[in-house]
C-alpha cells in the first residue's frame, strides 16, 4: 500500500518536474521536488514494515517464509530482506529514491536549469521500479495460511560480506540513473556547464560505489565460496563490471570536457551506454537467460526489465540523435599527442574490455540460437582476451599523467618518464633474479612498477617544489594535494588500481593449489608451510551441520598459529557454505578450505597459496580515499603570494614584482 502511494507520488513528481521545467512554473517544480523528497520516508516505512514482518516471524507473508525460518538469527534479517527478487527491488527503489532526493536537493542549488528535467527522468525510472513492485513483485503478498516455519535463508548469504556487497552493488547499479538523468537534462536544455559539474560529481560517486561493490564481491567470493579465487567472470559479475567500465571512461573524458569543452556529445553517449548496461545487469540478475551462482532465479520478471532496458536505450538514443546538434564543441583537438587523445585511447581500451565481456556473456545465447548447441564461455576466454587490454590500460595509466594538455612534445615526455622507466626495468631485473620468469607476470609487475614510480615521482616533485617555497615536506605535500584535488585524488585512485593489478598478477601467475587428505595428527606440506590437522568439531543444528576443523600451521621451526577452517552443510539447500582459514600477509595468503570428511576420520582440505591478494583489499579504502579527495570541493582560491623563485643568476635590476604585490595586499 505504501508502495502504491510512492508510485503515485513518483509519477506526479516526474510529471511535475517535466511540465514545470517546460513551462518555467516555479511552484509546480517546487511541489514536484517535495514529492520526490517525500518518497523516501514513504518507502522507508514500507521497508520497515517488511523488516518488522521478518522480526515477527510472520510466515504468512510469502516473502518472509521464503527467505527466513525460525532458526535464523535476527541480525540476518537485513540480508534476508534483499535475498529475494521482491525484497531486493524494494531496496533498489529505496536506494534510488534516496540518491534522487540528494541529487535533486544538491542539483537545484548547483545546476538549477538542468535539475528539473533530470529529476523528471529520475522519477520516471523510479516509477518503473515501483510499478514493478506494486503490480508484479510485491514482497507483501500474503499466503492463505501461515506455514509453521519458513524455508530459511540461503546459506551463502550468511557471511558478513553479504551484508554490504549486495546493497552496495545494487545501489551502484541503480545509481547510474543519476548521471544518466543529468545527461538527459543536459540534452534537453543544452546547458553543458551545469551538466559537467553534476555529471562529474555523480559519475564519480556512483563509480566509487560500483567499484567498492565489485571489490566487496571479490572479497566475499574469496572468503566464502571456497575455491580460492575472487573473480570468476561469471555473467552476473560481468554485467556489474560493464557499467563500471563505461563510467570509468566517462569520469576521464568528462574532465576533458570540463577543461576544454570538447567531446560533449561523446560524454553523453558514454553515460547512456553505462545506463543501458546497468539495466542489462538488472535484467540478468532477475531471471536472465544465463545461469549463474548469483542470479535470483529464473523468472519472467527478467523480460520486463529487458523491455525497460530496450525502451530506455531507444528513447535516450533517439533523443540524442535529434537533439545532439545543440551541444557544440567550441574547440577541436590540437595534437594527436595530447592528454585529450590519451583519454580517448583510455576510452577505447575500457570500452574494448566492456565489449569483450559483453560478447562473452551473450555468445552462449547466440550459439544456442544459431547452432542449437550449448557453449560455455568461461574464465579462460576472458583472461586471455581482456588480459592484454588491461595491461595496456595500466601502461596508459602510467604514461597518461605525463602527457600535457593540448600538445605534448616527445622530448619533454621522455625526460619525465625516464626515471619511471628505469625503475621499472630495475624491478623487472630484480624479479628475474629471484626466480620470477614468466613473461606475462614480469610484464605485469614491470608495468605496475612503472606506474607507481610515475605517481610517486609526481608527488615527490610537487613536494620538493613546495619545499623550495618554504614549506616543510609534510605540510607541503598536504597542500599540494589540496591545491589540485581532482588530479591528486585521481593519482590515488590509480594507485589503488595498480594494487589490484598486483594482486591479480601475483595470484594468477604464482598461485599454488593442492587437495590433501589428512588423518588427525598428519601433516601436509605446501611450499615451506607445514599444516597439521588436529580434529574436527561436529555441531548439528536445526537446519545445518557445522564442521569446524582445527589445524596448526608452521613454517620451518616457527609456529604460525592455530586456524579453524569451517564448513556447514545445509540439507534443505543441498549446499555447503564454507569459511576458509586464511593466514594473510602482504606477501601471500595461505588459504585452507575444508572439503569433506572421509570414512575413517580423515579430512579433505584444499590448500592454496595466493600471493599478493592482501593488496587487493587494501586497494578498496585507497580507492575510496582517492575518490573523496577528488570530490572535495575546491574552496575559492584565496590570494596567494607568488612563490619566490630562487635566482641562480645575478639579481634583476628591475624592482621585484612580487614584493610590490605583497605590499599592496590588504
Amino acid at each position, binding site marked *: 500500500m505504501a508502495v502504491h502511494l510512492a508510485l503515485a507520488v513518483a509519477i506526479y513528481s516526474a510529471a511535475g518536474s517535466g511540465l514545470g521545467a517546460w513551462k518555467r512554473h516555479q511552484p509546480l517544480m517546487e511541489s514536484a521536488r517535495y514529492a520526490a523528497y517525500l518518497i523516501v520516508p514513504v518507502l522507508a516505512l514500507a521497508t520497515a514494515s517488511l523488516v518488522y514482518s521478518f522480526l515477527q516471524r510472520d510466515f504468512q507473508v510469502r516473502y518472509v517464509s521464503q527467505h527466513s525460518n525460525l532458526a535464523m538469527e535476527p541480525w540476518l534479517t537485513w540480508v534476508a530482506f534483499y535475498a529475494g527478487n521482491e525484497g531486493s527491488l524494494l531496496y533498489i527503489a529505496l536506494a534510488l529514491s534516496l540518491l534522487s532526493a540528494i541529487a535533486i536537493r544538491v542539483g537545484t542549488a548547483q545546476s538549477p536549469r538542468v535539475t528539473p528535467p533530470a529529476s523528471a527522468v529520475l522519477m520516471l525510472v523510479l516509477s518503473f521500479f515501483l510499478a514493478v513492485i506494486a503490480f508484479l513483485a510485491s514482497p507483501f503478498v500474503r499466503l492463505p495460511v501461515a506455514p509453521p516455519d519458513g524455508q530459511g535463508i540461503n546459506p551463502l548469504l550468511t557471511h558478513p560480506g553479504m551484508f554490504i556487497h549486495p546493497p552496495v552493488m545494487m545501489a551502484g547499479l541503480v545509481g547510474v540513473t543519476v548521471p544518466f538523468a543529468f545527461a538527459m537534462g543536459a540534452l534537453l536544455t543544452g546547458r553543458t556547464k551545469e551538466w559537467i559539474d553534476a555529471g562529474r560529481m555523480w559519475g564519480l560517486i556512483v563509480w566509487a560505489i560500483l567499484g567498492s561493490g565489485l571489490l566487496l564481491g571479490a572479497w566475499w567470493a574469496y572468503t566464502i565460496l571456497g575455491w580460492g579465487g575472487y573473480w570468476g567472470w561469471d555473467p552476473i559479475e560481468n554485467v556489474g563490471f560493464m557499467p563500471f567500465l563505461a563510467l570509468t571512461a566517462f569520469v576521464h573524458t568528462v574532465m576533458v570536457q570540463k577543461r576544454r569543452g570538447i567531446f560533449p556529445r561523446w560524454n553523453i553517449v558514454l553515460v547512456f551506454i553505462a545506463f543501458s548496461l546497468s539495466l542489462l545487469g538488472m535484467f540478468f540478475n532477475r531471471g536472465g537467460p544465463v545461469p549463474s551462482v548469483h542470479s535470483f532465479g529464473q523468472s519472467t520478471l527478467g523480460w520486463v526489465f529487458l523491455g525497460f532496458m530496450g525502451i530506455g536505450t531507444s528513447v535516450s538514443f533517439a533523443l540524442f540523435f535529434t537533439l545532439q546538434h545543440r551541444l557544440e564543441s567550441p574547440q577541436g583537438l590540437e595534437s594527436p*599527442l595530447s592528454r585529450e587523445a590519451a583519454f580517448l585511447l583510455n576510452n577505447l581500451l575500457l570500452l*574494448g574490455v566492456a565489449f569483450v565481456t559483453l560478447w562473452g556473456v551473450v555468445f552462449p545465447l547466440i550459439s544456442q540460437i544459431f547452432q542449437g548447441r550449448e557453449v*560455455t564461455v568461461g574464465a579462460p576466454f576472458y583472461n586471455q*582476451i581482456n588480459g592484454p587490454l588491461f595491461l595496456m590500460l595500466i601502461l596508459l595509466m602510467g604514461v597518461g599523467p605525463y602527457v600535457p594538455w593540448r600538445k605534448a612534445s616527445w622530448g*619533454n615526455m621522455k625526460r619525465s618518464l625516464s626515471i619511471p622507466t628505469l625503475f621499472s626495468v630495475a624491478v623487472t631485473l630484480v624479479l628475474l633474479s629471484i626466480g620470477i620468469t614468466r613473461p606475462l607476470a614480469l610484464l605485469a609487475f614491470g608495468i605496475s612498477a612503472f606506474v607507481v614510480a610515475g605517481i610517486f615521482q609526481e608527488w615527490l616533485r610537487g613536494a620538493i617544489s613546495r619545499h623550495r617555497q618554504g614549506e616543510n615536506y609534510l605540510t607541503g605535500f598536504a597542500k599540494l594535494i589540496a591545491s589540485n584535488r581532482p588530479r591528486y585524488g585521481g593519482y590515488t585512485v590509480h594507485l589503488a588500481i595498480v594494487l589490484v593489478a598486483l594482486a591479480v598478477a601475483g595470484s594468477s601467475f604464482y598461485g599454488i593449489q593442492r587437495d590433501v587428505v589428512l588423518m588427525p595428527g598428519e601433516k601436509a606440506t605446501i611450499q615451506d608451510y607445514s599444516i597439521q590437522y588436529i580434529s574436527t568439531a561436529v555441531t548439528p543444528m536445526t537446519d545445518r551441520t557445522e564442521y569446524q576443523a582445527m589445524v596448526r600451521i608452521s613454517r620451518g621451526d616457527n609456529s604460525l598459529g592455530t586456524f579453524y577452517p569451517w564448513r556447514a552443510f545445509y540439507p534443505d539447500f543441498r549446499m555447503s557454505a564454507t569459511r576458509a582459514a586464511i593466514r594473510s600477509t602482504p606477501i601471500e595468503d595461505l588459504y585452507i578450505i575444508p572439503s569433506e570428511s572421509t570414512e575413517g576420520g580423515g579430512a579433505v582440505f584444499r590448500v592454496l597459496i595466493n600471493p599478493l591478494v592482501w593488496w587487493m583489499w587494501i586497494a578498496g579504502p585507497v580507492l575510496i580515499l582517492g575518490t573523496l579527495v577528488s570530490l572535495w570541493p575546491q574552496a575559492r582560491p584565496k590570494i596567494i603570494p607568488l612563490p619566490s623563485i630562487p635566482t641562480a643568476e645575478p639579481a634583476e635590476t628591475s624592482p621585484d614584482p612580487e614584493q610590490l604585490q605583497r605590499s599592496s595586499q590588504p
Partner: protein
Amino acid sequence: MTFLINRRLIPTALLAFAFILTGCVSEKPSTLEEQAQNIERLLICPVCPGETIDQSQNELAKQMRAIVQEKVAQGESKDQILQFFVDRYGQGVLAEPSRRGFTLLVWLAPPVAVAIAVVLLVLFIRHALRTRPGYADTSMNEDEDTELKPFLSQVDREAGFSPLRGSESSGRRSESEKRSDG
C-alpha cells in the same frame, strides 16, 4: 596527418601486437598436479551453474576431477582429456570455446572489434584536428590593448601572478631551459 600515423599509431600498434602475442603464449606446467589443475579449470561442471570442476564442491565435479587426475597420470594429453568429456557431456562442458568451427567467432570478434574501434578513433581524431578553430592566444597582443590594462592588472593581483616580460628569468626556469636545449 603523417604525424598522427608516425607518432601515435605505430608504437601503439606494435605494443598491442606484442601484448596479444604474449597473451597467446602458454606456459608448460611443471608437475602432474598442476597439469591436472589446469585441465580442471577448463572443464565446467555440467550440473552446477557456471562453475568449473575445479571450483565446484559438487559430487559430480569431484568425480570428474578424479578422472582427470587419473588420465593425467596415465599420460593423456590435454586435448585428449578434454575430448573425452566433450564426448560425454557436449561442447558445453568446455570452459573455453574451441577455436574451431562456429565458436571461432568468439575469438575473432574481439580483435576485429578493437581494430574497428581503433580505426574509428583515428578518424575521430583527424576530424577533431581539422575542425579546430584558431583560438586567440597569440593573435591579440594584450599589452597594446589599453582598455584591458586595468583588468589585466587586477587579474595579476588576484591570481598572485607576475606578468612575463621577454627577459624575465628565474634560476630554476633557466635551468630547465638549458636542459631543453640539450
